[in-house]
């Protein structure tokens, strides 16, 4: 696989593309199975806004709903997202890592490198597209539903071209500037913005045509799943792709290559600016490095900011949406089968509390907070061991226990900040949408989510303390969270196994319905106690072990 730049590019990234697309294929099969068991009439009554956001088409059979739910929305975003990450790493990523110099130390031109990288990117996008197409063709057969009236091949062709557009946009920005953050930021940012714009603009009268300036429009604007390939739209997508290849080629040839660099954060820029230097020097400099806690907490500032901002915006949006949807929501809750109700948290979406729980607290908020806590927990010890800074850190007169406690505190602080911001976002949404949900209850529910996240963060910490391996800690805790979530959702459906759900930390999160009843202190104590226990375990494990 190392015969040329092309084959190496493929071998570097084929796993991420395969994993992403195979997972989506499995999701599609699962979704098809779920939809098969539901009374579909409720979807016909859904408000246009929801249907657009989730990619449902107004009429059609089970297969269309499944494709719509998984492919038009989730698959297209994930698939294009992987393409963006490959496009970014192609040129700009190699410059950031400092390997571009070695690569070009061989008698190969920049044109050769770019051509091979581009070909690698296209092949990987084709590979992902074939996996998705295969899953799309197989899933209905497995589940036993009809695909009459659907053009999965047309949808996939447009989805492939869509991923190509955004992947090559990342390649073009990276090729022109050599800046990986800019490259992934612009491509991923435009991808999300154009997805939202294309989903939401048509609902606003007079602005529907504005959607046409966004590349996403040429993916599903013609509804290829029902109408087949739209030649003109496909031509726009392929034309954009070709344009981006040209931009990358010209940009990469004409500029100075970058040396290996580290990213510059917003704080760094403010620190360098003479106007803000004095204030920022304290925040980005001395305060940040005043101890293990602040330094560790500051390291995930980017992730904390993105997650918090997303929840705040979502909180406001979800709050605002409620009134328009209330009537339809009440009927949905009545019609959903028990299994589906369990998955969305057994809530009555017709009430404001149920709506906030179903849309935010049952899944989105815990996922976001667990991601934050588990990332910090898994990186706490292992990443310093992996990069080799643990030895230097431990050359100071501080004990291993103090490091574990400091890193744990940093994790809890960041989760705490996210909890406060989540509460603010949801409270704002509740206030703007006039939902009338109490601020105390919102704070209580967010706090419970934070405690739940801390359990999995502390689990990641313990796994890292025992092994010093970041991936093991990250995947271990994420897997545990997934299993715990499913256990809490599914086990209660069975009469024999329902008691086992109590083993899942999720059982102590929303069971007392904190959005209505406020905090359940015994549940909070259980989650807090689990966290403390896992941190104590980490202390023991980390103290006993040879450092890597």
């Amino acid at each position, binding site marked *: 696989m190392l015969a040329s730049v092309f084959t190496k590019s493929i071998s570097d990234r084929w796993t991420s593309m395969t994993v992403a697309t195979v997972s989506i294929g499995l999701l599609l099969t699962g979704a098809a199975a779920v939809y098969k068991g539901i009374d579909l009439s409720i979807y016909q009554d859904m408000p246009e806004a929801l249907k657009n956001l989730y990619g449902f088409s107004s009429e059609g059979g089970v297969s269309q709903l499944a494709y719509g739910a998984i492919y038009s929305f989730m698959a297209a975003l994930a698939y294009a997202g992987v393409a963006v990450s490959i496009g970014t790493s192609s040129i700009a990523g190699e410059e950031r890592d400092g390997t571009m110099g070695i690569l070009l130390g061989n008698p190969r031109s920049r044109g050769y490198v770019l051509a091979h990288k581009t070909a690698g990117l296209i092949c990987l996008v084709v590979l992902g597209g074939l996996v998705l197409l295969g899953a799309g063709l197989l899933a209905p057969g497995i589940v036993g539903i009809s695909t009459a009236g659907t053009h999965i091949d047309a949808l996939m062709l447009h989805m492939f071209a869509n991923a190509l557009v955004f992947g090559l946009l990342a390649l073009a920005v990276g090729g022109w500037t050599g800046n990986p953050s800019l490259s992934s930021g612009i491509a991923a940012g435009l991808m999300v913005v154009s997805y939202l714009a294309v989903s939401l603009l048509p609902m606003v009268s007079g602005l529907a045509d504005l959607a046409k300036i966004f590349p996403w429009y040429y993916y599903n604007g013609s509804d290829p799943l029902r109408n087949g390939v739209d030649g003109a739209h496909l031509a726009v997508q392929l034309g954009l792709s070709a344009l981006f290849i040209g931009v990358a080629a010209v940009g990469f040839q004409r500029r100075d290559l970058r040396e290996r660099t*580290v990213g510059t954060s917003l704080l760094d820029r403010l620190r360098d600016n003479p106007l803000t230097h004095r204030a920022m020097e304290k925040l980005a*400099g001395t305060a940040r*490095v005043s101890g293990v806690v602040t330094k560790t907490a500051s390291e995930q500032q980017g992730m904390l900011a993105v997650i918090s901002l997303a929840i705040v915006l979502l909180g406001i949006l979800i709050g605002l949406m409620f009134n328009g949807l209330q009537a339809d929501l009440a009927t949905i809750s009545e019609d959903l089968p028990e299994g589906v109700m369990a998955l969305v948290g057994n809530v009555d979406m017709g009430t404001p509390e149920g709506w906030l729980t179903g849309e935010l607290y049952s899944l989105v908020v815990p996922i976001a907070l667990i991601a934050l806590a588990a990332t910090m927990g898994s990186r706490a010890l292992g990443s310093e061991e992996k990069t*080799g800074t643990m030895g230097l850190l431990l*050359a100071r*007169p501080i004990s291993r226990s103090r490091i574990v406690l400091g890193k744990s505190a940093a994790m809890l602080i960041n989760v705490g900040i996210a909890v406060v911001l989540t509460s603010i976002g949801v409270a704002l949404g509740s206030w703007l949408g006039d939902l009338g949900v109490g601020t105390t209850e919102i704070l209580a529910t967010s706090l419970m989510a934070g405690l739940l996240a801390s359990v999995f963060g502390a689990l990641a910490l313990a796994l890292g303390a025992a092994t010093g391996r970041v991936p093991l800690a990250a995947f271990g805790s994420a897997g545990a969270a997934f299993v715990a979530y499913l256990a809490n959702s599914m086990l209660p459906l069975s009469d024999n196994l329902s008691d086992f759900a109590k083993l899942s930390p999720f059982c102590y999160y929303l069971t007392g319905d904190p959005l209505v009843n406020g905090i359940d202190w015994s549940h909070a104590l259980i989650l807090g106690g689990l966290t403390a226990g896992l941190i104590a375990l980490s202390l023991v494990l980390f103290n006993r072990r040879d450092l890597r």
Partner: protein
Amino acid sequence: MSNAAPIKAENLSKHYGDVKALQRLDLTLETGEIFGFLGPNGAGKTTMIRTILDEIRPTEGRSSILGFDSRADSVEIRRHIGYLPSGTVLYPNLTGRDTLTYFANLRGGVDWSYVGELAERLNADLTKKIGNLSSGNRQKVGLIQAFMNRPELLIMDEPSAGLDPLMQSEFHAILQELAAEGRTVFLSSHTLSEVQLVADRVGIIRHGRLVALESLAEMRSKAMRKIDVQFDGPARESGLAGVAGIRDIKVDRDRATLSFDGRMADLLKTLAEGNNVLDIRTREADLDEIFLTYYRDDETDRTEAS
């Protein structure tokens, strides 16, 4: 300052499964010396350092630093030492000054005027992010963090990697000043020339065993001599094979060159038998040759073992 031995290792062993990274190592450092710890890559130098600093735990034996037990008093130990790990890795997102501030905060009691002095002497740029510095400039920040608390004992693992010759000599000058103040330096290295320049005493480690432990002067004196012998006519080397201490003998008609670390009297007697010796020149082998000889023995060991 403490009167206890700066470093004392007793029967120190570290095994990873079947791999014996350290084998029954005994070593005692003396206060105020610069100790050169020499060995090829993979000999166990870093394992030894990580074991005495409690990063990893010995399979057998114990060690102490400045009289404190490596295991029980590891925090106290680190109040008194400066440490530079091999292949110095620092936080790429912090500037040099941020890095030093962080470490100073974790330690307490760092004299910033001394930091400034060190930065000036080593010509270190503390305003740039570590990730944007060249490896030599990064190493300077690593050196400063090891020096900055004026430690009683400095433990440095391959410290001069990436430094230019000018900076290397400045670094050696700092080491010698510290030793003159009664501080102890433990310098691990595979570059002999460096150890030769600054060390008072040398230990050589291979396959996790300490195979030699001598003062630099001792090592030179007892060590090998290079000998050239000029004969009056073709040399007869028949008896030479029996003399203990002869290595690498080469005979070229009326000349012989050899390395020798045996008794000179035996050699002279044997040479004189049946030969007319015109001239003998001997010189001290330099440390490089001694060092290589130890490693060559090493290779012989390995051939024998297999």
